[in-house]
């Protein structure tokens, strides 16, 4: 669906938020997620320890297998990792071991690392109508010439802050805070069909 090894649909009942002929919205299985802040030196070492280098280009993402490092700001990244064997629970042990590896590599270098595995959930928005559906609530130009595959950004979904990542021409991954998910899912599920 997302054309990435990182995201897979959640198996739980209710994982399907919206299913139409032109677009579907599905909750993704939980991931290990780390919020990282630091300068270029710290980012270099963090990438080596994490297993996917932290992109220095604005709005860039670097997916490597079941890991990805997403640029959020000039000194801020979101690190994502899926366990090797699929699980429907938050992969705590993976989050813990990645956290420890990055901390060890950066022992003497100023930085901030926070485990946000349980803070975020991800929605996979896929299909030829994906951009038009998102544009009912996201005020960005999602044409591929402006927002190409691979681009990732924080932005607003009406009033909720999200991180939007285009993983394929017709597929976006929307990362949002757990507590915002019902609001976002509700607005997506009830978006008027003639708007998409």
């Amino acid at each position, binding site marked *: 669906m997302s054309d990435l090894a990182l995201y897979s649909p959640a198996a739980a009942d209710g994982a399907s938020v919206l299913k139409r002929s032109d677009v579907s919205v599905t909750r993704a299985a939980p991931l290990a997620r780390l919020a990282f802040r630091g300068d270029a030196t710290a980012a270099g070492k963090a990438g080596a320890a994490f297993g996917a280098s932290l992109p220095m280009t*604005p709005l860039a993402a670097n997916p490597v297998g079941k890991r990805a490092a997403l640029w*959020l*700001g*000039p000194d*801020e990244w979101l690190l994502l990792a899926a366990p090797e064997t699929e699980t429907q629970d938050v992969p705590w042990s993976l989050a813990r071991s990645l956290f420890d590896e990055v901390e060890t590599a950066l022992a003497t270098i100023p930085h901030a690392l926070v485990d946000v595995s349980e803070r975020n959930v991800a929605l996979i928005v896929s299909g030829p109508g994906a951009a038009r559906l998102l544009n009912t609530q996201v*005020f*960005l130009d999602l044409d591929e010439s402006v927002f190409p595959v691979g681009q990732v*950004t*924080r932005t607003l979904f009406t009033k909720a802050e999200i991180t939007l990542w285009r993983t394929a021409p017709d597929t976006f991954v929307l990362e949002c805070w757990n507590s915002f998910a019902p609001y976002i899912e509700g607005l997506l599920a009830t978006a008027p069909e003639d708007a998409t």
Partner: protein
Amino acid sequence: MLLIHCPWCGIERPEIEFRCGGEAHIDRPGQPGDLDDRQWADFLYMRSNPKGLLAERWRHVHGCGRFFNAVRHTVSDSFVCVYKTGEPCPDLEALAREGAQ
């Protein structure tokens, strides 16, 4: 919708992603205890408030999260230029002359 260029993201984004942080280039006094009440009040409250170009702090709060500075026209609301925090304030009079031409 007003589009604002973020110098960190290198891209134009809708106004709703941003917050204005007031006039830029106002240094906090190094020794507040050495100031009398009037001087402290001047630092806290008195702003240039021009009819024309003004350098302001803006934050891309729902994007990269970083502060930057922008020169904005207080009458037309148009953005003349943006620059990163720490970079010098452009010559506002020269920018105003360019704009008038």
